[in-house]
């Protein structure tokens, strides 16, 4: 038995959004009588954390702590339109809509505060803790709690805002293909290190070192969740996954989690994640969509590492032990 070691690299970019279809999302924000904020959407949380991120974006924009924000999604009777959660668009599109709605609400909030404090709204700022202060004179302040009460019961104002973010549809030019398929791009570079058993074709991914550039890590802990899980899925795609193992032959498609193969908790590569942030011009606080991109670079990096280890190219996914063994035998002949 010989265990051979190799490493491979891959570098990629990934588009945010589905510009080729037109790409709108809308949001509504309003305050409750005691100065909590409700974000109403019809965007879907698939587990990536849409609700939490929209709360943080709204909180940042209004100027309150995140726990003062409640996200109500996704109910078509109350939530305004969203195209959906796909194409790495959720945070980018819905986030921009929430920012716009929250800005409008913030403006009303500052106007009410200005009336209460008898200053100009433009002279006010928030402290992020739930208070509105006069710039340069922070002793002169009012709580957002009191501002909301005033708006509701005294001034008759609605502290609310509407947000809409639309990327107009890009139609590819027929002959040249000139088009604007995306708004901004996330980036990644992955180096994978593998061991290949040259008698069985079995691959062990030892390490993956992933560098991702994602615009802005809005919530670094949640970014980490996605990137770690995505890196696992990329390795899974590279080595395991197919619903048609003998494609294009349709036979022997897996029907359960025993037959549909994915790495188990005993198959995990040592995974390193490094994040760079080059804020995008059009993203919410500079964010891009990293959710899909993070599962892509491991696939070619592993493929290239397998070649580096045993000198055979597997250009068909997944890179199964059988494909490697067949290639090794062909190489030996």
């Amino acid at each position, binding site marked *: 038995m010989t265990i051979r070691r190799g*490493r*491979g*690299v891959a570098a*990629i*970019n*990934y588009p945010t959004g589905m510009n*080729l279809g037109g790409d709108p999302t809308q949001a509504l924000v309003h305050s409750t009588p005691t100065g909590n904020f409700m974000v109403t959407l019809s965007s*879907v*949380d*698939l*587990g990536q954390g849409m*609700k939490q991120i929209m709360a*943080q*974006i709204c*909180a940042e924009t209004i100027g309150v702590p995140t726990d003062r924000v409640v996200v109500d999604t*996704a*109910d*078509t009777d109350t939530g305004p339109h969203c*195209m*959906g*959660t*796909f194409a790495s668009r959720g945070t980018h599109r819905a986030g921009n809509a929430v920012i716009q709605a929250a800005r409008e609400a913030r403006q009303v909030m500052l106007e009410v505060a200005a009336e209460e404090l008898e200053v100009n709204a433009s002279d006010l700022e928030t402290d*992020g803790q739930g208070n509105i202060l006069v710039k340069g004179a922070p002793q002169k302040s009012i709580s957002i709690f009191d501002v909301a009460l005033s708006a509701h019961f005294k001034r008759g104002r609605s502290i609310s805002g509407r947000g809409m973010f639309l990327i107009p549809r890009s139609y590819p030019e*027929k*002959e040249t*293909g000139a*088009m604007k*398929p995306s708004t901004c*791009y996330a*980036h*990644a*570079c992955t180096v994978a290190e593998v061991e290949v058993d040259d008698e069985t074709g079995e691959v062990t991914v030892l390490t993956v*070192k992933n*560098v991702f550039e994602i615009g802005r890590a809005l*919530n*670094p*802990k949640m*970014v980490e969740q996605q990137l770690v899980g*995505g890196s696992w*899925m990329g390795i899974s795609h590279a080595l395991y996954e*197919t*619903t048609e193992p003998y*494609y294009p032959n349709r036979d022997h498609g*897996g029907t359960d989690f025993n037959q*549909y193969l*994915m790495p188990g908790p005993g198959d995990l590569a040592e995974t390193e994640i*490094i994040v760079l942030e*080059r804020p995008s011009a059009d993203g919410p*606080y500079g964010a891009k969509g990293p959710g*899909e*991109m993070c*599962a892509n670079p491991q*696939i*070619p990096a592993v493929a*290239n590492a397998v070649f580096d280890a045993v000198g055979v*190219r597997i*250009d*068909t*996914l*997944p890179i199964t032990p059988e494909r490697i063994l067949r290639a090794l035998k062909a190489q030996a002949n």
Partner: protein
Amino acid sequence: MELRKSYFADVRKDDLHEIGQGRPRLDSPGHVTGKTAFFADRNFPGMLHLKMVRSPHHHARIRSIDTSEAEKHPGVVKVLTARDVPHNVYTILILIQIGPEDETVLADGKVRWKGEAVVAVLAETERAAKEAAAKVKVDYEVLPAVFDMEEALKPGAPIVNEYHGQNYYLYDSGECRKVRFGDVEAGFAGADHVLEQSYQSSPIEHAPTETTGCVVMPEGNDRFTCYTNTQAMFFTLDNTSIILQMPGSKLHFVGGTVGGGFGGKVDVIVEPIAILGAKLTGRPVSFIYSREEEMQISSPRAAEKVVIKDGVMKDGRIIARKVTGYTDAGAYSRHSPYGAQKGAGHYPGPYTIPNVWIDTYCVYTNRTPSSAMRGFGVTIGDFALEVQMDKLARLIGMDPLEFRFINAYRDGDMKAHRQPTEGAALIECMQEASRAANWPVAEKYMAMSSYKKEA
């Protein structure tokens, strides 16, 4: 995970309060206590269970359907066939004017893939629905099927889907989406080396732990509340409105808490037929995919074939790249015409290449319709591109990482689809990877910048 704040510090202000903070997730307490309400956690008295009778053949004409025994089966409340569906032929992307309508909610006269829905059975229990489904008699005339994309594109191949008339999607640009930039043939002629390679994948399942499904409640006011795990609320609502010829005001969709999606829950598949069942019976209806259905019936990531031909110079510059991509849509379009075209906008990858030719095809075969998945239109292309990059580097005897620096796109570079590059960061990712992986590259590459002004 580490945030490397030293990169791009000059264009980023880190002065935010809530953004950039690793706040705890507000949904997690519900997850760890089992209190989070997924759609299937709603159980209504009198709820019916919907089970689908599916085609055992890859391609067949339906001579007749006999549901009489199934209808008599104890516990069965309703059996639905194509004629019960008001607008049975649909396509999801018609909402953004990408037609033609090419797919049946319930098969009408023909099945085009093994597993296609033919008859829906609604019964008091899952068991009764399954037993009754087994009693539906469908008389099929089996037709020749085609599974291989190249075979499907040959003249004389069996036509998979008559609504298209040929086994590829017809774009306004013709049989494929095209990108033309520079003169690719001149590029090949002037190249030191030309390398043409072919890459292939097979379908991949999203495999969310929660299967696709919905629970429908007919409300007292002639409206229907649909608890769903769709990834796109209004996409589903609006398509349902078309399929059922029902005003959107009658439909109320509640979702947004989904047990994993990864693109697998963007098709409008379970909701229209479940709502129709609720309408025709006046009862709540549950239609939840079994794991087998999730694995083999729900849309997978398309199989793709990618052929890349590159012209490269000894000094490492790629001067011409021609990509021909084939997306195996299966029997129906769903989102695949979009994915193939998204691929055209993605090639030739994050590299600046002066001469580019791209053709991407969306091909129909007699297999489970494919659709979107995490990395839609890009994932397999990136596999092909980046293995090709490795081969090119080795072909000219260059370090694979250094070879990428030479070709990496930077701000202002014109892309093949004629958009100037903005916000590039590939070089910095590679520089950091070089450090993290202890994969040294020449100092001149470590000094490069995506801003296109050398440090």
